């Protein structure tokens, strides 16, 4: 991703090396965000909490467990989920088509649901249905945000979008789309009130109930990548000012953790009603504003 300036003048391969570094850092950032989330949540509840690198320990442990699975097709879907999530991240960091990034991410989520449906567990089935509803609600908001950004820049290529920005960051033109992205981030982080697919007190682990060991570790890894993608898209709103972007991402993250620790889980109907009234209103008002006042 072209962060601020073109580095190719003093480093000829910067256009390949910098995106690759971002691509490699993306899962690590996602895992660190998950660890920070657990630590800050613990401090908010007056606990000590696990260390920040706890997700790395979890991942290392999961990859060293015994292999257990009920059938082989669920393993294929697990690998497909991981592969498409990494492909979406690759498209994003190499500034390809934004729409393709969005659809590749959705395809990865569909493979997660297929993996849930390929096992005999009823919890897995119920989690799969809830995951489908979550995808339907969240990807709608995400799609409208992508459309707004694309219509504003008159192109869906991320290179053109970043070139179109100039000195004025996108947050000035699309503050409501950013709020919609915060809702998306809240759901992607699996925080209350919208953690309906992984509601462990109702349905064991949701769509991942039948996965164990390294297969569950693969899903954890791709979840980290997903968090990284959403963070990178949110960072795009502040692009000429990196420090403003990082501070705003931190503020957004703390807000999401605070919301997660002070609310209770709604039903899937609650998620549906919220995203298709408040969320859709936010993105549509912003879309109309961008179309009317270009």
């Amino acid at each position, binding site marked *: 991703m072209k962060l601020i300036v073109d580095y190719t003048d003093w480093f000829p391969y910067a256009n390949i090396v910098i995106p690759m570094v971002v691509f490699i850092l993306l899962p690590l950032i996602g895992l660190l965000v998950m660890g920070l989330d657990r630590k800050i949540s613990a401090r908010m509840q007056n606990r000590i*909490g696990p260390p920040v690198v706890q997700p790395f320990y*979890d991942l290392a442990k999961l990859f060293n467990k015994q292999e257990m699975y009920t059938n082989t097709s669920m393993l294929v879907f697990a690998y497909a989920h991981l592969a498409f999530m990494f492909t979406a991240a690759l498209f994003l960091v190499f500034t390809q088509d934004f729409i393709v990034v969005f659809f590749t991410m959705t395809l990865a989520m569909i493979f997660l649901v297929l993996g849930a449906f390929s096992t005999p567990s009823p919890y897995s089935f119920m989690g799969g249905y809830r995951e489908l509803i979550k995808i339907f609600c969240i990807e709608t908001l995400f799609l409208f945000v992508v459309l707004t950004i694309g219509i504003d820049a008159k192109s869906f290529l991320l290179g053109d979008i970043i070139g179109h920005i100039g000195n004025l960051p996108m947050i000035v033109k699309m503050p409501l789309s950013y709020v919609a992205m915060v809702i998306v981030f809240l759901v992607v982080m699996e925080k209350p009130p919208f953690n309906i697919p992984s509601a462990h007190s109702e349905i064991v682990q949701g769509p991942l109930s039948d996965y164990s060991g390294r297969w569950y570790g693969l899903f954890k890894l791709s979840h980290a990548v997903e968090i990284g993608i959403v963070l990178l898209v949110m960072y795009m709103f502040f692009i000429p000012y990196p420090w403003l972007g990082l501070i705003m991402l931190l503020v957004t993250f703390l807000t999401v953790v605070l919301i997660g620790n002070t609310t209770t889980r709604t039903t899937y109907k609650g998620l549906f009603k919220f995203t298709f009234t408040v969320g859709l209103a936010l993105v549509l008002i912003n879309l109309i504003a961008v179309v009317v006042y270009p």
Partner: protein
Amino acid sequence: MSSVNEKSKEGFQPANPNLELFKLKHKAGVKLVKSMSTIRSPWLLHFDTGGCNGCCIEILAALAPRYDLERFGVLNKGNPKMADVLLVTGVVTAGCVEPLLNLYKQMAEPKVVLAIGACPCESGVFHQCYNVRGPLYKILPVDVYVPGCAPRPGTIIEGVKKALALWQAKIAGEG
């Protein structure tokens, strides 16, 4: 190691001592990562066989903010496929033997079993009742016994720590 030596003999290549040393170090490093990471994120599965719920409440107290088991990376997963530590509370009755064995079989290796409270340790006051199928060790291989009626959260935490030390020794000792 023996297979590596045989292969090198077949190919008429003398074993490179540096390479052998590197392989040994690599193996030791992998084992270290394995044991260190496993003891840092034990996920619990709590099974109550139908006792008085006293021990269950003490386990929940250990997970709650005052004792905060999560600072050791412990999470209470209600799923045997993801759990590493099985906590059994309550006396083992005839009706719960089959579900207990089923849960134990679904857990992936490496795994440890803790008997929490007097009932699974030695059947307690229900000793030789008509519906009791003996202490837990007759059903499952128990790694750590945590006595008490009910054990305090501190005792349960110490039991979990001892089980993890045992678990680390198990991983470090395997070939």
